[in-house]
């Protein structure tokens, strides 16, 4: 139903959005496109929905070529964007009617479809109320109903449940599955939620750096990582960690290992048996381990294995936004920026500068984040077990959280990720003031942190003395680097 071959697109700013994406989606299939932000998910959808042009490749949707017959493609597809495209000051009925008119449907046909769809999605009671009075879940349902009004064969859902509460989300999942079964609709969806991909999709495609890394059923993907996953975070960043990593890989109890930032994920047959061995090996190598835990593989682990990044800690996605365009004009390609870069030696140097002051807390947040998402799965899903063994109090993470709080956390982590540049500048300008910056920024996240600490083993309070010490240590390291 959808066939994408060798899709390449580079934005005017020079950023490569997709670099040779190949996708085949059969009729009646649900495929979930998973990937970190900037991986090319939204670009792929925008190309397939005729919203965006592309440089190379061939894209067929409902056996029409997107490039040469966009009109036919548009007739055949429905599209539900991340942002709801419905008008808040119109009623549900008016929104649906307008949508039908845009597809040049007859009046009686539109009336019939409005009746059918509003009953199907159980929004007929609110149909004549302004959309601004709708709940988030109903708005999404109306959005999907609008996209279905002209009986499309293919439906594109871009982050369909983003920002919904757990109950509305599950409700919506039921509907998406139902429209797939009842109408035989082919669905391509992108999502941030692994659980969503796991429950909804027949097939999951993992996309990273503009390329599809793997396509398979969720079950097969999870089975490809058998046994347990042991996750380790290190207290210090050093080259010894790398040696340790390569050593571990040669051990016969280790099946595979991969990095996710400063975290190491080790795939073993038996978690409880492997942990003492790993601890011993670390001890011998004189490596301090901040936190160690094990769990059964989730889709997240599959994801980490193919992309080297967790899905929980990403900034916003979405093709080329206006700020990117402006950043392109005033950004790294700008001659002043280049000059500045030259004066400060190399790109590497620049990255280091950014990394030193900012990365440490960000990674700590990621740790917290991952730990909590693991337990979220424990609560709801199957038989996952998570065990945290603490060796150092200062990097310990809260272990329990509800999903909403978890989301809240993700937001905080995102905020943090977006700000490293600022941090770096602050750092550069005023090294003495650092403790100040340290205090202010982390506390932004602290309030939600506090809320989630019920049942936590320890806290990652950034203002406590221990982490301040760690910070100062980092600071001196950084100073050394910049002196060099």
């Amino acid at each position: 139903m959808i066939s994408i071959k060798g899709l390449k697109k580079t934005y005017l700013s020079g950023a490569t959005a997709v670099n040779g994406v190949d996708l085949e989606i059969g009729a009646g299939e649900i495929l979930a496109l998973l990937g970190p932000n900037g991986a090319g998910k939204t670009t792929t959808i925008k190309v397939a929905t005729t919203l965006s042009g592309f440089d190379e490749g061939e894209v067929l949707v409902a056996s029409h070529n997107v490039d040469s017959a966009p009109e036919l493609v548009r007739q055949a597809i429905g599209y539900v964007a991340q942002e709801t495209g419905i008008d808040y000051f119109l009623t549900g009925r008016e929104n649906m009617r307008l949508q039908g008119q845009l597809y040049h449907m007859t009046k009686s046909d539109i009336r019939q479809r409005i009746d059918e769809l509003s009953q199907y999605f159980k929004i007929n009671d609110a149909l004549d109320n302004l959309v601004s009075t709708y709940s988030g879940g109903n708005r999404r349902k109306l959005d999907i109903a609008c996209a279905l009004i002209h009986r499309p064969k293919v439906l594109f859902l871009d982050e369909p449940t983003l920002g919904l509460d757990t109950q509305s989300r599950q409700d919506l999942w039921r509907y998406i599955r139902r429209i797939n079964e009842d109408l035989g609709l082919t669905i391509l969806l992108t999502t941030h939620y692994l659980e969503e991909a796991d429950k909804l999709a027949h097939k999951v495609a993992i996309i990273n750096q503009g390329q599809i890394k793997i396509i398979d059923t969720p079950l097969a993907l999870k089975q490809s990582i058998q046994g347990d996953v042991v996750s380790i975070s290190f207290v210090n960043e050093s080259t010894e960690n790398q040696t340790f990593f390569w050593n571990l890989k040669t051990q016969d109890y280790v099946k595979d290992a991969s990095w996710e930032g400063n975290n190491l994920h080790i795939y073993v047959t038996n978690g409880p048996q492997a942990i003492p061995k790993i601890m011993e090996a670390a001890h011998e190598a004189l490596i301090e381990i901040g936190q160690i835990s094990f769990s059964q593989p989730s889709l997240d682990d599959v994801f980490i294995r193919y992309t080297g990044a967790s899905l929980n800690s990403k900034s916003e996605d979405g093709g080329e936004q206006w700020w990117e365009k402006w950043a392109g004009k005033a950004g790294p390609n700008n001659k002043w920026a280049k000059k500045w870069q030259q004066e400060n030696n190399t790109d590497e140097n620049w990255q280091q500068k950014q990394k030193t002051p900012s990365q440490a807390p960000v990674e700590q947040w990621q740790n917290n984040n991952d730990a909590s998402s693991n337990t979220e799965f424990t609560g709801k899903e199957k038989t996952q077990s998570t065990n945290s063994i603490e060796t150092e109090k200062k990097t310990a993470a809260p272990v329990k959280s509800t999903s909403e709080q978890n989301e809240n956390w993700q937001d905080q982590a995102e905020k943090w990720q977006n700000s490293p540049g600022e941090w770096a500048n602050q750092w550069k300008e005023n090294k003495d003031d650092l403790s100040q910056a340290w205090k202010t920024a982390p506390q932004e996240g602290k309030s939600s942190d506090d809320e989630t600490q019920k049942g936590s083993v320890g806290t990652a309070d950034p203002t406590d003395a221990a982490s301040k010490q760690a910070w100062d240590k980092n600071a001196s390291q950084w100073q050394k680097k910049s002196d060099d």
Partner: protein
Amino acid sequence: MIADTWHLYNKYLIISLRMPLWSLFSLIQPLLWLFIFTALFSNFAQLPGFPGDTYLDYFLPGVLMMTVLFGSSWSGVSLLREINSGTVDKLLVSPISRASIVLSRVLHSASQVVAQALIVLAVAWMLGANFSWHPLNLFLILSIMLLLGIAFACLSNGFAILSQREEPLVIMGNMMTLPLMFFSSAMVPEAFMPEWIQTAALVNPVEYGVDALRAVLTKEINTELFLQGFFVTLAITLAALFWAISAFKGLRD
């Protein structure tokens, strides 16, 4: 294309009628200026060489022009909002004509301006302005207003697409209002202006709009002045429309 434009125009119309006060919001400034300037410059009319009997009569085309500028120069802001809220994407994935998206927007802005113009005329009449209510005059006044409304809404929409941000758009909106007004004979008769401003007025679209309006507000229509102003305005409007539509077509690629 006409059907698409009509359906979308209809949508904007429903929303406007649901919130009529919001549509009249931009009328506050022109009315305020009408009161202030008429009071401030009332003695102007006694100066030798002043065209017209009272300053109110002279300033009325200027106020109508202000109504256009304040009313339609912000059309681009709501386009940006629609782009960011996904409404435009939703239109773009449907098979409607791309031009109709721009057309419906600017027509809506322009018809708001026409409705506001009627209110301005009524207020001016109550203040004692001396102009003709003859249907032909009224028709010509409103059609000039419609053209000007479309032209400035197109400029605003075009800038919105090019800048993709609200801040530069607001600056453009401000640039398009008062400076353009002062570089024309909207407030001060040509004879009273320094020579360089007279020259600047020659390339100011507002000047031609004001001329055309002034020509049809009098009881006896000044045909020559009107036709000159009308055709220049028409040309500007078509150019702006063409520009805005082509800018919109280049929005995603």
